[in-house]
């Protein structure tokens, strides 16, 4: 087995035993990247030179007898909306085409302390707005399992490079499903942590009350390793971050014995609109859980039918405010067509710098916050958010985790949904409620459809229920054998 085919946990053990050096590992993953990246196009920036330097530094420290963290020397790709000091951070937007942050995101400081090797910046839908990675100003990313299909989005690059064996781990961000849906489409494991578990400092904001950074990997253990590295209270930089009950201990706490675990199946998530292949695969996973000794039963979450309007109102409202900072003045793209008019400088820089989807969201957000419409849209959506949170809280009185599909279908063809934004939005139906309620959501592969495209399942937990989620994920992973799936390419 080539190095690039191994999981991060396996590689970590090999590095610790000096069976392989961090430089050899970095060279191997970059060789794999060079072999397949033309087809996948999962990166917008590769940082091979600095990665090899980081790897050499780790090897030096290990040779000197230093005890190193589990992730030291492990290659990790970073979504391009996470600020990396001195390295291009474009959000896959013309607006930030030349932006080199003067500081690191908190998660980057944490990964540096672990000694990870950063391989590059992963492609995404512009400003994380989209579900197919086709809204990137750089180029679309292709699904490694069928390069004529989308990898999902918005963290499509982060999912695709892990599925293609270009890197064992990556970071993404999830505002309405942007880690979970591409994980499902690419057959990898991804976790959207509880809101507040991971500092958002240095994550370029889309919708601040919903955004959360999270890990991708090809196994539950790998996702737990990366989660352990990034969680933590960040009082100086992110006032919404909190101390979790599981900081740094999730991997050590993994336990696949789930006898007696109560798993709820919300009937509304399995109805019309969900393809037969997805429904059958997720229900088969529910049977697996029964055989493992879990108690599986139907529950009801009727407000899901209002989740899309609530999500698109709240996220677009926040986006319209957050993206007001991009005005062509201090950094990023500035129009050459403004003449002497400062208002034209703002409007032309924004209209030329933002892509169509970003402009749609800004328009919707401005509309729902504008005078005369605020009460009917924004205020009502916030009230509905409270109701959705209560609905989940009541469900968790009865069950430990909730099992659902991730998306109505498996990955679709490139270009299939680009002409009608509403069709694209409808694909977010199974994931947005988790962000609205601030809950953790785990996605992992549970099967394949007739075209051999991966199908994912979603486990939703109560706030800070990450350990339970990953334990449930591990039990299924062991029973199904669906782990470390690398696309053939």
């Amino acid at each position, binding site marked *: 087995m080539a190095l690039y085919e191994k999981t991060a946990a396996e590689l970590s053990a090999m590095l610790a035993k000096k069976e392989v050096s961090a430089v050899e590992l970095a060279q191997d993953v970059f060789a794999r990247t060079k072999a397949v990246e033309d087809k996948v196009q999962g990166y917008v920036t590769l940082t091979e030179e600095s990665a090899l330097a980081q790897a050499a530094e780790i090897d030096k420290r290990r040779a000197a007898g230093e005890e190193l963290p589990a992730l030291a020397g492990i290659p990790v790709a970073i979504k391009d909306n996470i600020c990396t000091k001195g390295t291009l951070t474009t959000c896959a937007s013309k607006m930030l085409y030349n932006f*080199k942050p003067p500081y690191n995101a908190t998660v980057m400081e944490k990964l540096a302390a672990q000694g990870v090797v950063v391989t590059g910046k992963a492609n995404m839908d512009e400003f994380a707005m989209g579900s197919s990675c086709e809204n990137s100003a750089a180029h679309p990313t292709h699904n490694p399992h069928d390069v004529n299909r989308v990898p999902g989005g918005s963290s499509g690059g982060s999912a695709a490079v892990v599925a293609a064996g270009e890197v064992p781990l990556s970071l993404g961000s999830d505002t309405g499903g942007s880690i979970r849906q591409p994980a499902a489409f690419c057959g990898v494991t991804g976790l959207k942590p509880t809101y507040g578990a991971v500092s958002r400092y240095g994550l370029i904001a889309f919708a601040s009350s919903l955004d959360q950074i999270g890990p991708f990997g090809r196994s539950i253990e790998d996702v737990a390793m990366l989660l352990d590295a990034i969680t933590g209270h960040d009082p100086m930089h992110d006032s919404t971050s909190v101390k979790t009950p599981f900081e740094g201990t999730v991997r050590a706490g993994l336990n696949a014995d789930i006898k007696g675990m109560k798993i709820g199946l919300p009937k509304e998530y399995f109805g019309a609109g969900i393809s037969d292949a997805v429904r059958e695969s997720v229900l088969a996973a529910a049977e697996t859980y029964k055989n493992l000794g879990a108690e599986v039963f139907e529950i009801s979450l009727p407000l899901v039918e209002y989740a899309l*309007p609530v999500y698109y109102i709240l996220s677009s409202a926040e986006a319209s405010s957050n993206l007001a900072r991009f005005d062509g003045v201090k950094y*990023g793209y500035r129009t050459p067509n403004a003449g002497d008019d*400062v208002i034209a400088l703002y409007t032309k820089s924004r209209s030329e710098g933002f892509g*169509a989807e970003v402009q749609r969201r800004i328009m919707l957000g401005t509309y729902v916050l504008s005078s005369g419409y605020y009460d009917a849209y924004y205020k009502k959506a916030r*009230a509905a958010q409270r109701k959705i949170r209560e609905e989940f809280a009541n469900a968790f009185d009865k069950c430990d985790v909730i099992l659902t599909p991730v998306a109505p279908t498996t990955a679709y063809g490139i270009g299939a949904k680009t002409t009608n934004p*509403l069709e694209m939005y409808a694909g977010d139906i199974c994931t947005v409620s988790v962000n609205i309620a601030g809950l953790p959501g785990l996605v992992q592969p549970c099967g394949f459809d007739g075209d051999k495209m991966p199908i994912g399942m979603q486990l939703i937990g109560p706030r800070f229920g990450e350990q339970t989620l990953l334990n449930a994920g591990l039990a299924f992973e062991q029973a199904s054998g669906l782990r470390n799936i690398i696309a053939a390419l």
Partner: protein
Amino acid sequence: MAISRKEIEHIASLARLDSTGGIFDRLAEDMQGIVGMVDKLAELDLGDITDVINTERKNAFHEDVVVQEYTPDALIEPNAPDFQAGGVAVPRVVE
């Protein structure tokens, strides 16, 4: 509810987006469908729930510690579209 072209242009002006050309015609058309989608929320009866304040969270405070993390030049110059004489140059904003 239907949203008029004039209203859409007003929203664009609030959002500092150019409504005079480019992709704007397409955006204006898409807005009709998107607003129709979010209008579904009107059906939802929320009873007496009106409180939209997030009651689960408290304000977070920390000590106000003064540090100089950057010099202005190092912070602004590398990324400013037009940097002159220690500042960001923009079109004239006062007569």
